[in-house]
């Protein structure tokens, strides 16, 4: 490299590619730690279910299937939209990228709104595990535990979604400001990785929450 350094490149890097590869590597590593985070949760979940499958299934049958399923499709669509945005970016079409970001955010927000509505239904049906609980009888214990896991998992996932919507919004703003060009758009890639991951977490949670009890 010459004396002149690309404006985005920090002083510890040799060049822009060096820097962007490094950022992508960092994101992958972060996702690896996220995998263990949600993985730990799901292992604990399956372990507890093993002792009282009937209660867990009784709890699982109370979930709102249509919202979960709709949300699954929404998220898969949003990942698709964002990836197209990335493809447009690679082709240098920043306007399209911004549009894709906006659509992605809209879908993400819709997901969250649906999720809030679902929680509302859950709470009004006395499905929060503490306090008076809808399911009584022998399955109550397992069902309560199912709903404990349900709330921990969905709240954590929703937090990730909120952060994700924020990040996509940030990408959109930066893109509009002309911060990226087809030579350097690392943040777009990195945020995409994160968004897909949050999507995948939902793909894993979906059957555990909505299908296992009904199967």
């Amino acid at each position, binding site marked *: 490299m010459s004396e002149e350094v690309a404006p985005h490149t920090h002083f510890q890097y040799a060049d822009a590619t060096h820097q962007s590869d490094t950022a992508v*590597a960092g994101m992958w590593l972060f996702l690896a730690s996220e995998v263990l985070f949600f993985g730990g949760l799901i292992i*604990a979940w399956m372990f507890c279910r093993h002792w009282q499958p009937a209660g867990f299934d009784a709890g699982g049958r109370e979930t709102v299937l249509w919202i979960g399923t709709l949300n699954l499709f929404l998220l898969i669509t949003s990942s698709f939209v964002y990836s197209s945005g990335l493809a447009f970016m690679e082709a240098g079409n920043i306007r399209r990228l911004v549009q894709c970001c906006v659509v992605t955010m809209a879908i993400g927000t819709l997901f969250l709104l649906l999720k809030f509505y679902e929680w509302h239904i859950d709470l009004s049906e006395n499905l929060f595990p503490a306090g008076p609980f809808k399911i009584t009888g022998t399955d109550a214990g397992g069902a309560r535990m199912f709903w404990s896991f349900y709330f*921990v998992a969905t709240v954590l996932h929703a937090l990730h979604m909120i952060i994700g919507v924020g990040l996509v919004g940030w990408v959109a703003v930066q893109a509009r400001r002309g911060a990226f060009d087809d030579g350097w758009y690392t943040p777009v890639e990195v945020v995409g990785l994160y968004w897909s991951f949050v999507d995948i977490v939902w793909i894993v949670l979906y059957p555990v929450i909505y299908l296992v009890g009904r199967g």
Partner: protein
Amino acid sequence: MSQIVLPQSQISYLSDGVSLRSWLLTTDHKRIAILYMISITFFFFLGGSAAALIRYNLLVPQGMIQSAETYNRLFTMHGIIMVWFFLVPAVPVTIGNFMLPLMLGARDLAFPKLNLISWYLFMAGGACALYALFSGGIDTGWTFYTPLSSNYAQGHVAAVVIGIFISGFSSIATGLNFIVTIHRLRAPGLTWYRLPVFVWSLYSTSVIFVLATPVLAITLILLLFETLFHVGVFDPRLGGDPLLFQHLFWFYSHPAVYIMILPGLGVVSEIIPVFARKELFGYKFVVWASVSIAVIAFFVWGHHMFVSGQSLFASVTFSLLSYFVAVPSAIKVFNWLGTLHKGHIRFDAPMIYAFGFIGLFTMGGLTGLFLAALAADVELHDTYFVVAHFHYIMVGGMVSAYFAALHYWWPKMTGKMYPEMLARAAALLMFLGFNVTFFPQFILGYLGMPRRYHAYPPEFQVLNVLSSAGATILAAAYLMPLVYLTFSLFRGDRAPANPWGGLGLEWQTPSPPFTINFVVTPVVTKGPYEFPKPGIEPSDV
């Protein structure tokens, strides 16, 4: 590589801005390391004060402190602060932060801002924990066993748990930063097998940071949920399983104990060759020993649960794996001895600490073998034998390694030499005080004294008094470096760039280093310990 000449390139990182703001908003890994150092020193003396009160209480059988509740809060606070807010960040995050880019010939870590955020997370977590500990404290022990912690304990379990949770993110961020930096920012010619062992051990430590900490995080969230809402995941009365908590907790905390030793093993592997003027014996074996410790560490957690009611089969398996994880440590000890053989050994303070480390770590490790032997653990579990075991490794080993590192790199970090004779005296006093404090605890444990006891049967008194006397010596020894190192900042001699004759890249910068570390990126042509070899003859294989 680029040869950018930045304006501040010729300024030492210490004089590059002196305002508080320039420190608190810095992204320079060296300054962040100093911030960490100040924070963990504070936490060490806080945890140490709790230890002093513990030892004070145990002077008499009925307990000097009137209430058992206070005592229980003291050792809980001692354990939590020492583990999460002192020892875990001590060597890797403090010394490692400073030295890693220098040793790689890099200008900074890969993600300098993340590094600063990581410090703020650490402090936020610490503030949370401190708030809880001072506004009433908690009495669960540092292990938080359920259902005691979730449904019976009084106090601010939730706040402490949140504090540890937040500081966990700091660990993950640092680990991630280190791994990426080691992969991506090595100077030209610095191949994997030319990396100093300290870098390898930081790498292994970081892997544990990134892969074990999230499991602790999710465990704490479940615990928090149960504590706040009294729903059962871990409480059998509510249909949960208390052993599940122990499995999840130790799945993090066993690897975490290697977070608390691997960097120390790295420091010693760095110091021994330099002060013996001889190449590290069996470099590749030492390196792969670090990596294999980090890997096997994930599969031995059940050795904390031999009498907990887990299945016999699980116990037997975990015992076998615990023996496997001890093999790489043995390899390291023997390789250090091999390095000393036919060296030109000097006993400057870092080397005295390193010698102390080898001795105390070996004793701690060997007593770990007692605990890993199933039938012996049935007798020794949760007695003072365990307390002695882990203090030998963590205090005798890792704290010694921290002091070794601190003295070894002090001239580089501050540009000042510390008073050598005082430093040697402190090192010897620490070794003495340490043994007087903790050796009696092995005997106490073997005689059956359970840990976490506020009061004890009178026949244990003599050994307890001995232990408390030792702790007083130890406290004095720990205060010495605090005083003379601070003094040296103002009155110490100027340090040369390379006071010990080391061969690592960090010695090729001035002391203290420039803000950008290297004006010209160094090019590496040989291994980190290739000292001239007198009279080599090609030997047989």
